[in-house]
């Protein structure tokens, strides 16, 4: 499987080519280079997946972990070094497929979406850079390589969010995204350092003796690493950058902020999963609680947002919460019971990537058609944009958990795992799943049904997008329709053994009923031209509505911490101290030297009388001293 290195090298080449020579190319050529390269990467990824999963299983029934490439990149000590390489195991191979598929679709889609934009070449260069970094992250052979690419996806995200660099909101959003995730990455880094020091390696599979030594510190190390993961995966309270990140071009939101980069945190927990299970089960449960709270928080905020990309952003946060919960409810219980959540989480990651990318790309078509993100400019779009409408509906049904779409199957596994962990967790997650269905259909009706903004649509008739944009929608919709039937348990499971997914009838029925009720409620409230119930609710609970609309003031809280505390209370005083106290002291020394010179200067007056006086005084003093001493 040596050819897998090409999966990494090709996007780098395309990035270098586009970054260095892109400005001399036409839009079409640069876009083609990016897309063709990504097509090749996708083909290679599928080939790798096919080859990998058709390898015979090992004697213990698991798939072998292959490391076709690995080399020391930066040596620190004998045992600690950053390696760069390619690691293939079920989850990394699955991620290769997810990333390359979504990225390829986004490359095609961007042809239409970014047509004629200034900086088209730069856009494709950044997309290549991002794809490379993300692929490098998932095939990392050690935790430090993961960190390296983790930072690189962070910077690609920064560059792409700030793509429209003349827009103040985009600049602020890109900066915020980078700094918040950087802050979280500090935890990741310290976690890695602790892990490296106590376990004695950066590898994912430490030696027995290393684990013996480091067992005490592993919960702390893993917990700190999870802080980094929580930052990237927008877990509360580090989620604040993600809604703002929607300032970037919509295909970018689909690729980075819905399907791939934001699940890096989930992937990181999954990557360290064996260590969590064996050494830090409590930390793992903290992951679950954080995920559950985030899922609830984001779902409640999503219910009242009016910007369609914001709704999708909060929906993403909420769904990632689901994945985290699924990982977090795993236990060391034997057979498939304990590890069910792991499989469910990875399955949901897979299906969510597809339907969420679909939703974002659909949203991109809508924004393209009405030139606004606000729901008030939409309504009744179903007759103008049939393809977008149908594909968007499929994705909404999938995320709501309606069979036979993919989301139903993965979410059902998550709920089963939650119920196995504790009924409370199970019911909470079922409730959040219901909220998901509600806000998604609120969004759906707000865009495609409801009252049409006739004046706006008369001035500028909405139109269906070109084939370059609708084709990816159709592909992703097709995947969403069939992905649920993938026998996922044969590929990725907690313990590596093959497992047949079977639906838990009670859980499936409950979640279906909840979803249908929620959709019915949304239909009742939002499908008509006027929305008396929703308006009445907003009037009845103005405080709550306002708070939810303002995302429960989390941004204000962060702004307070950064602007008031760090900027005003730390940096300003430090800078003042530096200029006035430290430097003031140096200036004082200089002044004192100068001033004493000024003081002594008059003594050199040139008047003989004064010199004689001083001379005599000196003699007297010296004589006295001699006399006293002797």
């Amino acid at each position, binding site marked *: 499987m040596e050819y897998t290195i090409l999966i990494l090298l090709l996007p780098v080449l395309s990035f270098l080519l586009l970054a260095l020579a892109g400005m001399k190319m036409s839009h079409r050529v640069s876009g083609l280079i990016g897309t063709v390269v990504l097509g090749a990467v996708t083909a290679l990824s599928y080939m790798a997946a096919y080859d990998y999963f058709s390898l015979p299983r090992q004697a213990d029934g698991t798939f072998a972990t292959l490391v076709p490439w690995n080399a*020391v*990149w*930066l*040596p*620190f*000590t004998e045992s*600690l070094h*950053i390696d760069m390489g390619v690691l293939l195991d079920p989850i990394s191979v699955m991620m290769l497929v997810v990333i390359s598929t979504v990225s390829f679709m986004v490359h095609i889609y961007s042809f239409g979406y970014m047509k004629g934009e200034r900086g088209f070449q730069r856009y494709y260069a950044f997309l290549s850079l991002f794809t490379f970094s993300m692929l490098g992250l998932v095939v990392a052979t050690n935790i*430090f390589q993961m*960190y*390296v*690419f983790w*930072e*690189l996806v962070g*910077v690609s995200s*920064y560059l792409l969010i*700030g793509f429209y*660099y*003349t827009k*103040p909101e985009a*600049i*602020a959003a*890109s*900066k915020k995204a*980078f*700094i918040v995730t*950087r*802050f979280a990455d*500090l935890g990741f*880094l*310290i976690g890695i*350092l*602790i892990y*490296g*020091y106590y376990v004695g390696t950066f590898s994912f599979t430490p030696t027995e003796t290393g684990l013996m030594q480091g067992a005490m510190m592993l919960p702390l190390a893993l917990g700190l690493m999870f802080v980094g993961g929580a930052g990237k995966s927008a877990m509360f309270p580090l989620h604040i950058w993600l809604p703002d990140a929607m300032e970037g071009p919509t295909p970018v939101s689909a690729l980075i902020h819905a399907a791939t980069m934001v699940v890096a945190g989930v992937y990181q927990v999954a990557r360290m999963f064996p260590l969590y299970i064996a050494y830090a089960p409590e930390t793992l449960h903290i992951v679950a609680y954080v995920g559950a709270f985030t899922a609830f928080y984001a779902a409640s905020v999503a219910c009242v947002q009016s910007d369609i990309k914001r709704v999708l952003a909060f929906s993403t946060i909420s769904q990632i919460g689901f994945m985290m919960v699924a990982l977090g409810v795993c236990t060391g219980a034997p057979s498939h019971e304990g590890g069910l959540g792991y499989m469910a989480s990875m399955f949901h990651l897979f299906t969510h990537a597809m339907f969420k990318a679909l939703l974002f790309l659909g949203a991109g078509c809508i924004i393209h058609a009405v030139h606004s993100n606000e729901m008030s400019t939409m309504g009744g779009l179903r007759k103008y944009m049939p393809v977008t409408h149908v594909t968007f509906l499929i994705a909404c049904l999938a995320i709501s958990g309606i069979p036979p779409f993919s989301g139903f199957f993965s979410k059902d596994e998550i709920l089963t795992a939650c119920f196995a962990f504790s009924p409370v967790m199970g019911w909470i997650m079922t409730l959040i799943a219901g909220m998901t269905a509600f806000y998604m259909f609120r969004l759906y009706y707000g865009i495609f049904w409801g009252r049409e903004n006739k004046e706006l649509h008369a001035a500028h008739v909405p139109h269906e997008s070109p084939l370059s944009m609708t084709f990816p929608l159709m592909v992703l919709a097709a995947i969403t329709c069939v992905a649920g039937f993938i026998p996922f348990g044969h590929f990725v499971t907690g313990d590596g053994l093959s497992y047949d997914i079977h639906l838990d009838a009670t859980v499936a029925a409950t979640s279906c009923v909840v979803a249908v009720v929620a959709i019915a409620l949304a239909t009742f409230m939002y499908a008509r031209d006027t929305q008396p119930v929703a308006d009445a609710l907003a009037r009845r609970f103005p405080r709550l509505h306002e708070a939810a609309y303002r995302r429960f003031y989390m941004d204000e809280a962060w702004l307070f911490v950064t602007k008031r505390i*760090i*900027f005003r209370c*730390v*940096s*300003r005083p*430090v*800078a003042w101290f*530096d200029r006035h106290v*430290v*430097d003031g*002291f*140096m200036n004082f020394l*200089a002044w004192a030297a100068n001033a004493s010179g000024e003081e002594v200067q008059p003594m050199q007056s040139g008047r003989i009388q004064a010199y004689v006086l001083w001379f005599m005084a000196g003699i007297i003093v010296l004589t006295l001293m001699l006399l006293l001493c002797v």
Partner: protein
Amino acid sequence: MNILSLFVLIPALMLLGLWAARSINQVRGVMVAGASALLALSVWLTVAYLQARGAGETAEMLFTDSVMWYAPLHICYSVGVDGISVVMLLLSAIIVFTGTFASWKLQPLTKEYFLWFTLLSTGVFGFFISTDLFTMFMFYEVALIPMYLLIGVWGSGRKEYAAMKLTLMLMGGSAFLLIGILGIYYGAGAQTMDVVELARLHNIPESMQHVFFPAVFLGFGVLGALFPFHTWSPDGHASAPTAVSMLHAGVLMKLGGYGCFRVAMYLMPEGLAAWGDFFLVLTTISVVYGAFSAVVQTDLKYINAYSSVSHCGLVLFALLMMTRTSCTGAILQMLSHGLMTALFFALIGMIYGRTHTRDVRELSGLMKIMPFLAVGYVVAGLANLGLPGLSGFVAEMTVFVGSFEHADVFHRTCTIIATTSIVVTAVYILRVVGKILFGTCQNPAHLKLTDATWDERLAVICLIVCVAGLGLAPWWVSDAIGGSVEPIVSHLLVLNP
């Protein structure tokens, strides 16, 4: 003749050539020829050094030579290099080369400017090749004095004040240094001034070390922007002309770290044991303090100067951690900081040359107006905040991994405090990038400005290639440095387990 002496001979010949030059083109010709020769020489030296090590050469210093200079005090002109000095020479040659192009159109008194500039580089090269304490000190002084004139004559803003302040503070440092050197010489029995020899003798009485270690460490530390003796740096850098800032932050500040390691720590391990923790606290403060101070600055050069305080603080911090990895990281950080700060100062100089302001509040939307310089600035910024693939990451990670080898509470706390600087760095870098490069241009006068000329492009590209080269292929540099750090650190560890 010894190959290393060429590093002093070439600048000397350049001085002669500059003196004889009659036109600006001749001046430029001499500079380009000389700087290229130095660059070629340092590359050749690096290759030769690596080959010699590859062939199993184990002596601490290679390419050694020694000529008695003043017998009564055992002062020799002795030269020799190990991995640390080799990379420092390479760094200096790169900065001198790019600095030449960065001051291509400098006016007025071009010839005199380059004369002092070359004299300054002579001192720097001489310092790094010397293994004799006194010769080292002499070259150190040679490097300091021209700075006064370069800033005082060709600077901007409050240049006289800045030049005076910088010179006085650094001179104050070298007064300590001279005392320390004499202390070492007499403490070791007045037999030799050779660093390697002194370390081998290792006979300075402990009571003397307790006095002279802080003298030497402070003397070099002032140049390495050790808190609270760093305040010359913001004023000095802000007033200095572009290439001088580059050379000063890029190379001269490295003399501080290099001296602390090679002289203070290596020769006085007992003194280090007594004072190490004290200085470690100071350097930890430097790291965070510089970063936080940079956040609120409004002058581009001040931001960068405070950033240098933070990054050079990390150099001394890592040295005081005294593990093989952290010291390797310190040298890598010197290299990395030299390259990226030179890049930063070059770009700031170029932007200032066009807009005549360095105030971040008056600049905006430069990305559209001068895309090349703006992209260069972004790259420099990303290197500064430690993006993998550029030099900063490699250095910082080596430092942190090395510092983490101490498990006691004191060192661990210092390390964790120091790591927080990576977040603050991101804050001040992105703040500036967002303010001056992005957005729409507010000042109509700036709309007519042009992008970089060929000489500026050459300087910038050259530095970016080096920054990326170190960031992408760090293993060989790390190996070369690590091999030479090893004997020094093991010498220290005998006494400081």
